[in-house]
């Protein structure tokens, strides 16, 4: 039987790759450039005009959080997570495939719990009025953003599992960058 075309074998993963890359590039990238800009403007205003931006630290820390949330899935998808490869050479291809499935299932479970708890904490943060020190920016939406970031990470792993199960590991290639 001829090999099916690549785009037919992994439509869900391709779609997810596009979402994950765009989220990191445009969302995370904007936060990165924003964080740099905010830091520079704050430094200039502080040292040249002796008037730093009020609450800059509050904004910067939440910008950092959004950046992390929007990049975690992309990092996982492009092999950004470190694992120990030293024993892989001692395992057969079939065993390795099942190990990959097992490891992903455990990670999906963990990320589901993490997403759920972050969402729950966000609701509590809203209830108890948790907010930043200077500008009183409410933390509630930021818990939710971090929860969604972790959920996207879980979605990446969920989309990869069927390809391992069907032994289509060559179709797993992540986006080049």
């Amino acid at each position, binding site marked *: 039987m001829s090999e099916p075309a690549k785009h037919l074998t992994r439509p869900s993963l391709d779609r997810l790759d596009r979402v994950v*890359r765009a989220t*990191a*590039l445009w969302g*995370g*990238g904007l936060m*990165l*450039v924003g*964080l*740099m*800009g*905010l*830091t*520079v403007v*704050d*430094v200039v205003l502080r*040292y040249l005009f002796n008037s730093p931006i009020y609450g800059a*630290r509050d904004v*910067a*820390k*939440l910008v*950092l*959080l959004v*950046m*992390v*949330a*929007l*990049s*975690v899935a*992309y*990092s*996982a998808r*492009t092999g*950004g*997570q*470190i*694992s*120990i*490869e*030293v*024993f*892989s050479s001692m395992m057969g291809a079939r065993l390795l495939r099942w*190990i*990959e499935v*097992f*490891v992903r299932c*455990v*990670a999906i479970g*963990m990320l589901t*719990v*993490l997403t759920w*708890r*972050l969402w*729950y*904490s966000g609701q509590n943060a809203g209830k108890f009025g948790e907010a930043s020190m200077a500008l009183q920016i409410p*933390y509630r939406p*930021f*818990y939710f953003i*971090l929860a969604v970031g*972790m959920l996207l990470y879980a979605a990446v792993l969920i989309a990869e599992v069927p390809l391992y199960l069907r032994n289509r590991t060559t179709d797993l290639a992540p986006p080049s*960058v």
Partner: protein
Amino acid sequence: MSPAMIGIIGLVVFFALLVLRMPVAMTMLVTGFAGIAAINGLPAAYATLSAESFEISSYLELSVVPLFVFMGNLAGLSGMSADLYNAAYAWAGHRRGGLAAATIIGCAGFAALSGSSFASAVTMGRVALPEMKRFNYADSLATGCVAAGGTLGILIPPSSGFVIYAILTEQSIAKLFIAGVFPGILLTVLFLLAISIVTRIRPELGPAGPRVSFGEKLATLRRASTIVLIVLMTIGGIYGGVMTPVEASGVGAFLTLIVALMRRSLSLESFKIVILQTLRTTALTFMILIGAHVFIPFMALSRIPDNLVTFLTHLDVGASGILMIVLATYIILGTFLEGIAMLVLTLPVVFPVMLELGYSPIWFGVMAVIVLEMGLISPPVGVNVFVVKGVAPDVPLNTMFRGIWPFWLAMMACLAILIVFPQIALFLPDRMF
């Protein structure tokens, strides 16, 4: 079941998951969460999980990670690494082993812009390896000096290794950065010495390159001066107390971006690549730190670190004997454990022991990072060697590891010198503004 027993089971599961290739961050998250749940109940584990994830992700001092990584990636893209190499090449290339020496000096210079050993090895490898091949350098020396030189990236500030050490041990990032300056210079000199000895014994490994006119030498220096200026403003700013590390990272990234734009070396496509590479490294670091901050409370609850501290400090080998045991363990662990994972796993135990024995936490941070560097080039999991393999795919790994030994011995010499003269690491941080 006692907390200690749960701790031991947790450690067994931890290593089993690592062997099964679960990412280090996820392994710490899973075992840490399950361990806290087993000792203190599910509500405590839930609370730790969400609180630590939110705390770490919004920890302002960690802004130095994305901003310095961004700066390093921009510097690589804008050709600053080539400028550094060309300047070192013009001044040292005509000597025996001179191109290898130029590579080390280039790596040291680039390390002052980048906090990552991989970025340093890849960027400098692309520039230096073709030149060394052109002048018939032995593959072992050429790849060995790129892989080893790259490790300077995490010793010379800014350094991702120091940021992680600082967060795990609650030390000052600024002091650790500054503590890395002199040991970084010392290790650079020792690497140069290693090249000199190797090429004196076997001159055919590194033949002399062409001589460059004095005018050209000055021109290369002028071009490299932009980098010197950025380094002076960022690292100098931290040392002088003018800027915090976060401010310095923002200013450094901004200046590097301006230089890249002025040189017209930044297209929209390459800018996107730089951003994605930066975010990938950032997310990796944050996930590891989130995992570590769930795993470390589990270890503390199990009281395993306390018991080990008591055991180690009561050994009849003296403080320096314990230090030797710790460093030897690190060197052995570094041969098969990823460096950051090794730090995260061992620091909860080792750090209190070092404090108990009266060692400076800043000095020990420098020692830990150098040992981590040794792990990066030690077989079988010398990650930096694999990175260089990506740039030089035709050179067998055995040849690369053969070329590593002189540099590995130089690192051992550096550790020994720092043990005898800890002031080398502590002189600058003790005099910070």
